[in-house]
């Protein structure tokens, strides 16, 4: 029995190699790219991939990602991320042309975003043929990985195989990823800075998915190489364009204590994320105390807090009913806010708008 299983695995390796031979390995140089060759498929698909530059640049947060052109007039699909949290989002096309992009909208569940640039007759992927592919499909992943390509330098092309089609169970930092539908798991290292938003194409160059954000498996903690299937992209894109998804980012889950006060901090993305206030829930104790979005919390009571975690610990340490005094920096000045007594744990929480 053991011998039989070994010989099976050898056969399957051989089969994979043969498929390679047929589809991708043309003999000798094929300069200019023969039709159907990997070279030509990559060249055609890469023209539809854009490099996106926005906010970031601090440790652990890159300021660049990838996107794909989905209409000749300049509609670009990419992943929703902090890179887009910028007044000036720049998109650099394969030919090196640089456009300022407008954020059309986002799909918080699929973590997709649609951008728009003022273009005409741009090379674009066709979103209408949205069929699924199965495990074993050979793919090319084309992206702005590590930001190595700039200007008119072509996006990076990697080769691989769809290893499985499975529901996504993943997390970013402590937070679970909001999308839990099916994804393509890839036998191709695509989980790299800059790759999210890149194109996943089949051996004929047809778009089959988009490289997802950097996530780890909830179960094992390993970084996942995955892509969102095309049909999900189409639904997300349609909803964004039709305006049927929430226009604002849904408040990320915040620990109970802070949510009870009406404070939403920025997502926990870094080792020591500074305790910036992302939003203040309307009609909450924090709102009444005058706390505002973009305030940087520096102290809770007499305890200085340098990180999001430290702030949570400080608030958690206050006995319910005791007053909460929060010091923040706003426009360069220290402002003190008396948030009032800490509510008990079981008081009804306000939901995010």
């Amino acid at each position: 029995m053991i011998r039989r299983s070994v010989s099976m695995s050898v056969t399957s390796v051989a089969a994979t190699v043969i498929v390679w031979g047929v589809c991708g390995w043309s003999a000798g140089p094929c300069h200019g790219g023969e039709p159907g060759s990997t070279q030509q498929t990559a060249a055609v698909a890469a023209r539809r991939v854009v490099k996106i530059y926005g906010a970031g640049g601090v440790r652990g947060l890159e300021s660049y990602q990838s996107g794909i052109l989905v209409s000749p007039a300049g509609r670009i699909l990419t992943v929703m991320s902090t890179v887009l949290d910028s007044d000036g989002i720049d998109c650099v096309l394969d030919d090196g042309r640089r456009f300022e992009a407008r954020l059309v909208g986002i799909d918080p569940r699929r973590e997709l975003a649609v951008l728009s640039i003022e273009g005409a007759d741009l090379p674009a992927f066709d979103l209408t043929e949205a069929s699924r592919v199965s495990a074993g499909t050979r793919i090319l992943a084309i992206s702005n990985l590590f930001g190595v390509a700039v200007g008119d330098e072509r996006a990076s092309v990697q080769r691989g195989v769809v290893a499985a089609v499975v529901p996504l169970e993943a997390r970013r930092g402590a937070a679970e990823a909001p999308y839990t539908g099916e994804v393509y798991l890839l036998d191709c290292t695509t989980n790299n800075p800059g790759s999210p938003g890149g194109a996943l194409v089949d051996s004929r160059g047809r778009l089959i998915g988009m490289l997802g954000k950097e996530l780890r498996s909830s179960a094992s903690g390993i970084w996942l190489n995955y892509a969102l299937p095309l049909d999900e992209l189409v639904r997300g894109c349609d909803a964004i364009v039709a305006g049927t998804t929430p226009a604002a980012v849904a408040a990320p889950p915040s620990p109970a204590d802070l949510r009870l006060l009406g404070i939403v901090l920025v997502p926990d993305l870094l080792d020591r994320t500074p305790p910036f206030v992302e939003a203040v829930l309307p009609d909450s104790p924090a709102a009444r105390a005058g706390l505002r979005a973009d305030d940087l919390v520096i102290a809770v009571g007499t305890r200085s807090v340098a990180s999001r975690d430290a702030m949570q610990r400080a608030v958690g340490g206050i006995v319910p009913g005791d007053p909460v005094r929060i010091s923040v920096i706003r426009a360069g000045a220290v402002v003190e806010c008396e948030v009032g007594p800490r509510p008990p744990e079981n008081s009804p929480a306000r939901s995010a708008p």
Partner: protein
Amino acid sequence: MRSNAAPAVAMTMIACLVRVADVHGAGVDPVVLDAQKQRVEAVRRCASVAVSIFVGEAGGGSGVLLTRDGYAATNFHVVQSAGPAMTCGLADGRLYDAVLVGIDPTGDLALVKLLGRDDFPCAELADSDLVEVGDPCFAAGNPFLLATDLQPSISAGIVSGVHRYQFPAGTILEYTDCIQVDAAINPGNSGGGLFDARGRLIGVNGRASFEKRGRVNVGAGYAISANQVRNFLGCLRAGRLCDHATLGATVSSGADGRVVVSDILESSDAWRRGLRYDDEIVSLAGRPVRTVNAFKNVLGTLPAGWQVPLVVRREGRREEMLVRLAGLHAPAALAAIVAGQSGSDGKEGDSQPRAAEPPRPDLPVAIRECYESRAGFANHHFNIVERDRVAAALAAFRDTLPAGPWVLTGRLATDDEFRIELSDTSATIDLPTGTSALASADDFGRSPVPPGSGGMLGALVLWRRLVIEGPAAVGRTIYWGTAPRQPAAMGTVDAADLVDVLESAASGVEARFTVDEAGRVVAIDLWASPDDDPCEIRLTWPAAAGQVRPMPVRLDVRRGGEPFGVFHVDSRNEATAGRGDVP
């Protein structure tokens, strides 16, 4: 337990490919079988030229054989801690002593020589400018130093990007114009070959983007292009500590996307040739420049000292100039970096897959015989080897030359007559503007005659002395390396047309002699003073077929980018030159 999983996997793949061919050959499309056969053959070729380098107890990396007599390329950062001696394994299962030959610390290249055979298998160097994104590729090497059985690991992938620029990450190692691949490049792969689908060498692997997973492949490895290796190979064979080039100017990208000169040193050759602020760079060394990265890419592939064409656009006009590239580092600074006073560090992010530094062992006898330490050289022994080779080529040509004084007569482009006489003790040149003379004891630097030439007569005297008496007769002479035969034609002719260059210092001047494969001097550059423009003489020889003529047919003399004169030499000189008669 010895870990040799990777080569085992590679071998299993080959074995099963072969088996499939045998067992299922009848039912499989011939196209598939052909592709498979080609791949098996390519992998066999990659493996046969792959070198597993072991340095001391803990260190090592990979290399790739370039010549039958055992010259192999690797990374500078692989040999940096090795000293002159290392042990190399080949797929034939044997260990060879190897000696360091030359290093290029900025480009992260090194040349070593395996000893003991003159029939090593060697890689065919391909034209890496023809590599395209999507091309299949193989990396062969010694990842994680797994090749304890001397069998290299082969990883397959595709070319992910070409002409990539990777800025120095905390080191001086700059990867310019490199090839990006998704074939696995891991620590230990450094210095190994990157091959195309036919097993031809397209690059030398050396760098990878690492991120959050530690120092393992994440799908982005980088190889120094084969064309860059080819450009530096002559300088490396010279046993030198090679430097990269600077134009003496920095460029930046203008608002309209043009690449313009943003700063320039007035002491640079580029400045003297007329390059100015805000000039738009159109091309360098025959390659178009559309981005700052493209400029850095071209420059990074060129050794310091080469003369290359530069095309700029200024106020709507194209200007072409030949520019000499200066060294990126002061020689002492480069030597200090090599000595490890600054240089590689263990920074995160993009970095070199290098191993721990081992203690330096005593030199084996075989190494001692081909190693000589000298300032400015990685191994001066090989400079003598190459100098002697060029001297032998010059000597072979010598027999066809007249023994006594050389007399060259003919007409200038202006149709005026000229006469040049060169002898052991004196030299004279008669021009319409007057007669100039030099005695061999003269300090050529103090009397660069004829006036305006920058030292043409001195250059010709040294040429005759080099040809008749050999390199030792023209002062302190080293083998410099190789340079393009015709710099002006770079990018339009075969870029691989590189010829030998000797460099000498004597009689108060410095001179460079470019010698072709037939042993003929085709260019002489003479600096009467190091900071001034040299006298440049280009010698045109008759086509070899049918006609035996020992003297050039034409001398083009230039200085500072301006022609001094074009000398058409009479063919009747061959009859008279030997006797020194006045024609």
